[in-house]
């Protein structure tokens, strides 16, 4: 009767103060059956890496709307490596220009979603990435 549930940490790194989007995604992930640790606004990449280790999450979802993703994501990946936790996958969402996406992926980000991505797309990607049954669907997303 083992019960595994995907643990996901959702974070806002940096200065932008909009957390509506990340909260909507957090709720959708809960509705898809995931356990979501929400850490609030204005986190540093160091805080996020440390929290991800203590919470033993398999995935970190970072939302950055300020445009500072190229400055904020590399330190996060570095801190994860420093914790020997670079097996934790990182998903970036927010306002990410087309040209930056391959760069983020090269750095080690598992996936990039922009503001036009639907919640179903995000949940679908997570499900495939972690080999979860497709039955987990975000019924009340949006």
């Amino acid at each position, binding site marked *: *009767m*083992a*019960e*595994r*549930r995907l*643990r996901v940490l959702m974070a806002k790194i940096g200065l932008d103060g909009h957390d509506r989007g990340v909260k909507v995604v*957090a*709720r959708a*992930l*809960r*509705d*898809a*059956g*995931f*356990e*979501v*640790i*929400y*850490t*609030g606004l204005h*986190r540093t990449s*160091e*805080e996020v890496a*440390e*929290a991800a*280790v*203590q*919470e*033993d999450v398999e995935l970190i979802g970072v939302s950055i709307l300020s445009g500072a993703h190229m400055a904020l994501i590399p330190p996060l990946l570095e801190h994860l490596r420093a*914790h*020997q*936790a670079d097996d934790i996958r990182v998903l970036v969402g927010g306002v990410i220009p087309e040209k930056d996406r391959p760069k983020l992926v090269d750095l080690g980000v598992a996936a990039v979603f922009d503001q036009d991505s639907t919640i179903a797309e995000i949940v679908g990607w997570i499900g495939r990435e972690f080999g979860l049954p497709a039955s*987990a669907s975000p*019924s009340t997303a949006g």
Partner: protein
Amino acid sequence: MRTVDIDFANRRQLARLITQVENDPEAAAAIVRAVWPRTGQARRIGITGPPGSGKSTVVDQIIERARAEGARVAVIAVDPSSPFSGGAILGDRVRMLRHSGDADVFIRSMAARSAVGGLAAATRDAAHLLDAFEFDVILLETVGVGQSELDVMRAADTVVVITVPGLGDSIQMLKAGVLEIADLLVVNKADRPGADETAMHLREMLRMAPPSPGAVGAVGAVSPASAVARSTSQDVERAPVSAVEWSTSQDVERAPASAVAGGHLSQAWNVAWEIPVLKTVATDGTGIDALWQTIRRHREFLRESGQLGARRRQRVEREVLEKVEQALAAHLRSRLAGQPGLGEILARARAGDLDPHSAARAILDHLLKG
């Protein structure tokens, strides 16, 4: 038998072990067996109270006070799971972020999953792990459903019940079973109007309450009859054996001499520990020093009165019996599934030909015979 190789300095491994005890009962058994000899040193403090009353903010403040004394502090913060999806949003950590980067603080969020008593099924095992990893203080924050959260009483040495001004009247609190589980009562958000009235109300309720409401662990020190009378009904149902057996244990000898001589143990306990009512403003730290000092004083009281040992022994016994009950229930269910005769009884009950009591009795007879 699985063996577990543990590096007690490795936080990542600690985090992973907690996940394993959450997800896999077999792994939990092996892990707890491996760490058990190292447990027993930590102070386990439960923090319970209705949703939004400030539990996490109080926990954050307590972390700071305990750290100032050099204690290593761990937190297990439980939030509810969605009954529909089984998922959860765990948000307690947000209130404790200033301790991020402190290598002597470890905070873990935990979903309640199917548990209903305020903690998750794995919370106790996780606390054992943190204890073995040499955390001196373990703070257990309950879900905060506002119901009687008895789990915390079964997992902590000291239970802090938090309430806020204007949150329901005394009858509601009595119904919620607050008095039965509290060692300390805290009126948080004392910056809001009505805090004094709420505190006064609580003190009045405590005066009117039966003796030594918080001293559930003291059950062992009183006679069998009163032990049963004073346990909550749930306790009596769940562990009648222990309620009686505790009275014969050596804990009676550990009671204060005056209490034994007077022959009114429960009243003596009551004199020894009067449940304090404290006011705090967790957001700015007002009253938190007094709260921490009172938690420490309760710890001293438990130790000097012998109740610390008594509570812990009772807790372990309960944990064992619960595990046996769970295993038995699982075993029964699997046997039920394999016996057509029992299916017939169930079918008759479903059809309304047999009342639930008689059906259960028939099934039991069947199982106990076979």
